[in-house]
């Protein structure tokens, strides 16, 4: 099949960007979206033109590196699917696709579709860890964790930190990301100890990084490739209120 692409081209962080038109020819259904872009890029390189720069790494939906907005939706039209795992069979011959980078002030464009998402890493660095001394490798099941709690913590831990929530949020907020990390650690006994300090530090860092505030629009939940739920944002809010009431 043949597609028309309008792709965001921007040569550097300070340069002005614009949408440029490309043709994607002879695309087969079983190509992934990124393979389709690879094809386009090979053609561009053959013609001596500048290829489209985009982020990717594992291409199996686990690293969180790929980051594109297709027709206004981060990671494209398929629910709970990263753009690297999206296949061309979900598109039709003759489709026109607008491909843009994740947009937020906290995600400055580096080049074309590549944005700098290190703000998310700095949120993790501010408190998304456990610093209590844990000693040697413990025996299994020394710390008993109810199955239900472990399951919810694992749901939160599914977050791959891709930043689609920020890209979808009308306020450029990183609440879903931060909430997933806060909830994941707060639900487990090892992380519980530093829960209050963590939620304050991480939300503070979130604001410092220039992410917006959550407006409870829930766009984030509908684009999250890992299906992280906004119930974790409610959990973060609870943790925050508890921390402040106890005097954090």
């Amino acid at each position, binding site marked *: 099949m043949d597609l028309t692409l*309008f792709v965001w081209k921007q040569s550097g962080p300070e340069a002005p960007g614009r*949408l440029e038109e490309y043709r994607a020819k002879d695309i087969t259904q079983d190509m992934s979206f990124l393979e389709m872009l690879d094809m386009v890029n090979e053609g561009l390189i053959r013609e001596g033109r500048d290829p489209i720069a985009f982020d990717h790494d594992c291409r199996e939906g686990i690293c969180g590196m790929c980051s594109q*907005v297709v*027709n*206004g*939706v981060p990671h494209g039209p398929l629910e709970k699917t990263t753009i690297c795992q999206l296949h061309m069979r979900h598109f039709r011959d003759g489709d026109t696709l*607008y491909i*843009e980078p994740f*947009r*937020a*002030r*906290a995600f400055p464009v580096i080049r074309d579709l590549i944005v700098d998402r290190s703000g998310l890493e700095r949120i993790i660095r501010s408190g998304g860890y456990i610093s209590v001394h844990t000693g040697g490798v413990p025996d299994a099941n020394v710390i008993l964790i109810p199955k239900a709690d472990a399951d919810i913590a694992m749901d939160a831990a599914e977050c791959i930190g891709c930043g689609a929530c920020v890209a*979808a*949020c*009308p*306020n*450029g*907020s990183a*609440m879903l990301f931060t909430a997933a990390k806060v909830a994941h650690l707060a639900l487990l006994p090892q992380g519980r100890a530093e829960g209050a300090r963590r939620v*304050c530090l991480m*939300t*503070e860092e*979130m*604001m410092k990084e*220039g*992410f*917006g*505030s*959550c*407006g*409870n*629009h*829930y*766009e984030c*939940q*509908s*684009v999250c490739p890992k299906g992280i*739920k*906004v*119930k974790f*944002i*409610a*959990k*973060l*809010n*609870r*943790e*925050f*209120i508890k921390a*402040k009431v106890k005097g954090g």
Partner: protein
Amino acid sequence: MNTAVGRKIVMSVTGVSMIAFVTVHLLGNSTLYAGPEGINAYAAALHRFGVVIWAFRLTLFAMFSLHVIYGVQLYLDNRVAKPNGYAVAKNIASTFAGRNMIWTGLLIAGFVFYHLLQFTFQTVGPGPAAAAHPDSAGRPDVFTMVVQGLGSYAVSGLYCIGLAAVGLHLGHSIQSAVQTLGLNSERSLPLVIRGGTLAALLIFLGFISIPLAILAGVVK
């Protein structure tokens, strides 16, 4: 309180207090349907609280001011945090009401200002100021002031716009407050969203019934 989550909590707490007030206000308004006997007696009874009423008004004013200050600040900061939209805009979960909170909010602020001048300070007409025109029992004639005040199409039109803004604002804010105060679970969220929208609709219909009833001549 000026943290990412703290500001939202201020918005929720002040917002919830105002929703509580609006609900009581609506119940009070319904005494209009009982004619002059109803609302004039209700108003006179309220005024017997004297200084308590003023303490209440000042608290409400403080809530209102905090809500406006933090709301405008959040709007401005959020706009900076998301400077550019997408060439193809797509909203999946957000609503018209949710995305326009700042505008419905500002409309409400303007509407409340006018509403207070008209019925609390009674400095703008139409309709005779109740304080200066007692009814036959010697109470301020709130009934005549309201019925004549809202009897004009222009004034009622303004009320329709103001109340539509209130309805839209509440349509997003009730569920938003529940979420910000951390009271949601995965199961409660869709119920809270639907319940909040329904409550907003009921409040809107309750308020708007008054100018409509007056224009239709049901209350006179």
